[in-house]
C-alpha cells in the first residue's frame, strides 16, 4: 500500500479546507481559498488514483475540475464584490441580517 500515501495528503488538505470554512470568523476571501483547497484535494486524489490504476480518465476528470474551479472562483468573487458594495465589509460577521 506504499503507493496509496497520497490519500493521507489529500484527506489532510480536504480537512484543512473544510475546517477553514467553519472555524474562520474573519474574512470571506479565506472561505474562497478554503473552497479552492478542497477542490485541489479532490484533484490530488484523481491524479494519484489515475497513476495507481494506470488509467487516463482520472487525469481528464482533474482537468475538468480545474476549469470549473476557475469559473466558480470568478463567480464567487463577483458575488463578493456586490456584497462588499452593499455592506462595506467582507467580514464573516456582517452576514447576519437573514436569520430566525
Amino acid at each position, binding site marked *: 500500500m506504499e503507493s496509496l500515501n497520497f490519500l493521507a495528503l489529500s484527506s489532510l488538505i480536504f480537512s484543512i479546507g473544510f475546517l477553514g470554512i467553519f472555524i474562520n470568523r474573519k474574512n470571506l476571501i479565506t472561505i474562497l481559498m478554503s473552497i479552492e483547497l478542497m477542490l485541489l484535494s479532490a484533484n490530488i486524489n484523481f491524479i494519484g488514483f489515475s497513476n495507481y490504476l494506470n488509467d487516463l480518465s482520472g487525469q481528464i*476528470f482533474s482537468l475538468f475540475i480545474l476549469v470549473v474551479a476557475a469559473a466558480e472562483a470568478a463567480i*464567487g468573487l463577483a458575488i463578493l464584490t456586490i456584497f462588499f458594495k452593499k455592506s462595506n465589509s467582507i467580514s464573516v460577521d456582517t452576514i447576519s441580517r437573514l436569520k430566525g
Partner: protein
Amino acid sequence: MIFIPEIFMSLGFLVILIISVFLKKNSHIIVGYLSLILIFLTQFFVLKDIFLFEEIFNSFFVIDSFGSFLKSIILISAGLVIYFYLIVKNEISLQRPEFLLITLIAIIGMMLMVSSNDLLSLFVSLELQSLALYILVSFSKDDFNSSEAGVKYFVIGSLSTCIFLFGSSLIYGIIGSTNFSEISQFISDQYNLPTLLIIGLIFILVSLSLKISAAPFHMWTPDVYQGAPSIVTAFLSTAPKIAVFAVLIRLLVYPFGEIIIDWGKIIIILSIASMIIGSLGALKQDDLKRLMAYSTINHIGFILMALVPGSEDGITAICIYLIFYLTMNLGVFLFILNMRRDQINVTKIKDLSGLYKTEPVIAGCLAIIFFSMAGIPPLAGFIGKLLVLNIVIDNNLFFLAIIAVVTSVIAAFYYIRLIKSMFFDSPTDELDLLTNPQSKLLMTLLSFFNLTVILYPQFFLNLCASITLSLFALK
C-alpha cells in the same frame, strides 16, 4: 441524432443571446417570450423521444423515458416561472434580458443532469446549473438581502461541489471508472465491498442532500429563500429540486442498487430529520418565504421516505408527489409575487390577514392550495402523502410512517394558521388588489388542479408507473 432537446436548447439560447444584444426597449419582455417559445419547442422534442432508450456519447449520457419525463416536468415548471416573470411587475434590477438568459442556462444544466450517466458529466452539468443559480440568487443588486443570500448560497453550493468531487474521486479510485454501468457491474460482481467505496457514496449523498436541502443539511434554505428575489425563490424551489431528485434516484437505484442496505439507513435518517425540522422550524416564522422554505424541507423529507425501499412503486410515488408539489409551490409563489402594499413587495404572514374581505376568489384558491400542502383529503397533497405512506407501510417501516403522520399533523397546524388569518382576522392594512387577470386565472387553474385530481388519480399512477419501468430495465 438522438441528443436533440439539449442541443436545440443550447443553440436556441445562443440565438436569443444574439437577438437580445440588438433590442433597445422592453428587451426583457421580448426575450421572455422568445424563451417561452424555445421552452415550448424543446418540450416537443423531449416528448417526441419519450419511449426511446439509448446510451450516447460513449455512455456519458443516457436517454430513457424516466429522464425524458422528468425533463418535461422541469421544462413545464421553468416555463411557468418565466411566464410569472412576464405577467408580474418586477423590481427594476430584474428587468434585464440577462436574467432570462441565465435562467435558460440553468435549465440546460438541469436537463443534462437528469440524463447524465457518468460522474464526470454529472459533475459538469451540476456545476452548470449551480453556477447559474448563484448568479440568479444575487441578481437584485439594489437589495442587501439578495447579495447576502447570494454569498450564503455560493459558499454552501461550492462546499457541496467539493464534497461531491472528493466522494467521486474515492469511487473512481476503487472502481477505476466513473461510468454508472461499470460501477453497477463492479458492485454486483463483488461480495465484500471496500469501505472506501461506501465512504465515497456517503460523500456524494451528503453533497446531494445539501442541494435538495434535506435536514441536517438544510441551514442555508430559509436564508436563501428569504433573501433571493421572489421570482428566483419560485424557480429555486421547483425545477432544481426535481432535477437533483432525478439524479439521486438514478444514482441510488441504478449503480448502487445492490447496496441498498447501506444507503437505505442514511436516507431514513435524512428523511426523519427533514420531516421533524421542517414541521417544527416553521412554527415560529413570520415571513411567508421563510415558512415556504421550511415547508419545502418537510416535503423533501416525505419524498425521501418513498426512496427507502428503492422499489418501482416508491419511484412512481416520488414522481407523482413531485408533480403535485410543483403545482402547490408554484401556486403559493404566484401569490407571493403579487403581494404588494402601496406598490412595494411585502412577504410577512400578518400581511395576509383579512385577505378574504378584499380578494375572496384568490383567498379561496390559496386556502385550497394550503389545505393541499397540509394533506387534507380529497386534495392533491393528500393523494401524494397517501401513496408514500402506503409504500412505507408495505415495507414494514412502521416507525417511519408514525413519524411522518405526527409531523404532518404539526405541519397542518401552521398551514391552517395561515388560512385562519386570511379568513377570520380583521385586516390591518389592506394589500393592493390583484390587477392582472392572468395571475388570477393561473391561481384558479392551479387550485382547480389540486381540487380535481382525486377524480383521475389512475391517470398519474399509470403514467408514472410506465416511465419508471425504464429505470429498472437495466437491472
